[in-house]
């Protein structure tokens, strides 16, 4: 089953959805972590994580609250830099370059690695200006209109807002706002999209739209999605990483394997809802 088909049938098939076989021919990893640890003061948030995230696939990160999954996501675009107490050790590379190298500019990194947050967070500006923001701060002045339109189309929002691009983004519904945030993130054409529980604040219909969208985006982008919702991980991802308490990456494999035949009993217990 191709990605395209899975997009259209994702709701009906839900948990039983099978993932494409293309996983068996892995591409070079987009993101690679080796012995990555993060501490907040005396608290360990991430404990010696090793992971290779494949290019242009959807990698889901699941685990109970406080397992370090968001911390891991925020390492990838160095959003953890904003927290003074966070200390990162080990290696984390993006396309072969160590992200925490002292010569890497986090601003430049974040232009290649976009992020969508748990709560829709559009700027209090017009819909158009929200999408154009990333282009403008990069000094891009050509074809802003076309790029904004394209981003809105790819985020499956254009038809709903084409008449009201100058209206405030805050007037949109929560689901529309989140798709706007996705449009804003992809307008600058990043390589990677990080998504931190992007549908957790949305109703089921809006969630379904976001999931469809993510499946489509994975054709062009490497998507790393943190989710609380195991069905969601099973529905949309190619690979799944399971973090358990203590910031430990317990198991990382094809999504099908994780959900049907996990190696670790703890992972099976978590997935079947015995804890977490």
């Amino acid at each position, binding site marked *: 089953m191709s990605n395209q088909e899975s997009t259209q049938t994702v709701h009906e098939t839900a948990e039983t959805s099978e993932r494409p076989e293309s996983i068996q021919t892995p591409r070079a990893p987009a993101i690679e972590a080796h012995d990555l640890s993060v501490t907040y003061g005396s608290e360990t948030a991430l404990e010696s994580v090793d992971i290779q995230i494949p290019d242009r696939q959807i990698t889901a990160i699941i685990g109970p609250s406080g397992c370090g999954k968001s911390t891991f996501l925020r390492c990838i675009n160095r959003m953890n830099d904003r927290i003074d107490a966070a200390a990162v050790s080990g290696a984390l590379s993006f396309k072969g370059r160590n992200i925490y190298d002292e010569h890497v500019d986090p601003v430049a990194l*974040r232009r290649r690695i976009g992020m969508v947050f748990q709560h829709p967070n559009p700027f209090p500006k017009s819909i158009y200006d929200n999408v154009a923001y990333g282009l403008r701060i990069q000094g891009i002045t050509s074809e802003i209109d076309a790029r904004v339109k394209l981003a809105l189309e790819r985020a499956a929002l254009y038809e709903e807002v084409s008449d009201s691009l100058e209206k405030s983004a805050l007037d949109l519904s929560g689901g529309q706002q989140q798709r706007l945030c996705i449009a804003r*993130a992809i307008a600058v054409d990043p390589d990677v999209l990080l998504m931190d529980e992007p549908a957790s604040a949305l109703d089921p219909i809006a969630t379904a739209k976001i999931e469809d969208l993510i499946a489509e985006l994975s054709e062009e982008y490497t998507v790393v999605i943190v989710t609380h919702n195991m069905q969601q991980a099973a529905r949309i991802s190619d690979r799944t990483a399971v973090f358990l308490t203590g910031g430990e990456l317990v198991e990382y494999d094809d999504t099908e394997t994780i959900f049907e035949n996990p190696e670790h009993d703890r992972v099976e217990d978590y997935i079947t809802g015995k804890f977490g």
Partner: protein
Amino acid sequence: MSSEPNADRESLQRNDTVVRTERLYGWAIAASALLTILVTVGIVLALLGEALTFWSAVSPLSFFTGTKWSPIIDGEYGLLPLVSGTLIVTVGSALIALPTGLAAALYLSEYASERTRSVLKPALEILAGVPTVIYGYMALVYITPLFQGILPVSIRLIPPGLEPLPAFTLVIPSLQTFNVLSASIVVGIMIIPMVSSISEDALRSVPDELRAAAYGLGSTKYDVSTKVVVPAATSGIVASFVLALSRAIGETMAVTMAMGMSPQLPYFPNVFRNLAESSQTMTGAMVQIASADSLGGVTYEAMFALGLTLFLITLSMNVAAELVRRRFREVYQ
């Protein structure tokens, strides 16, 4: 306890003493609120009464359009020179206070570490607590002499060698002992804390999610501050500007001390003269009348007409600030 039904019933009994004291508290609090309203109404009525008496002696038209203010000597009651003095000082102080105050607020809210902020913010607020008479004194004793050391300056606008052209020279004259420049500077410094403090509150109330979104798109700190946080805090920033300007318009002691009591219409074309020489604001004129101990009479009543005009100006500015605040207020979820 529930095994004793009588005790339960007792505990539900209304206590009349409590009800009465509650009512008393309510009245006391309401009376305090009412008092402030009554005082405001009283002030407006008092101003209005005397002002109307004044305007029956001096026509409002000649008051509002007159170009000479010399109440005590000539009996001339033209408001325009005082409006000019007030406006020049207000604009001058705004040029100093609005950019500096906003920049200070941005620094405190977006750039400073928590520790730096915890020291700097109270320090800035102390600036607001300095009695204004001290600012007036500073202008006279330090700022005016400082500029008198530098000025006058003349700048040739057309460089030598282009002789056929007239040698336009810009002359910035030296300062008189009492001058508008020093007054503008001290009033500007005086209102910086108002701008920075209120603006900083507005900047900090911008949800952190918006900063995260902007950083996530590859914004520099400066981008985040100027393109996301400041626009999102527009309503609070504008409110701080307007409140600071109201304060500058109403400022009395420092301006009277620093710029003297010589009402002036603005000079053209050498606008620097407006800053270098003495002038008088509406508030300054009121102080002068009040200290000339001429109770009663047209001059005395003129003070109330000035006061009413001043009050209407600051009131309309505060209303404008409120409208702007509502217009730009964003509702976050």
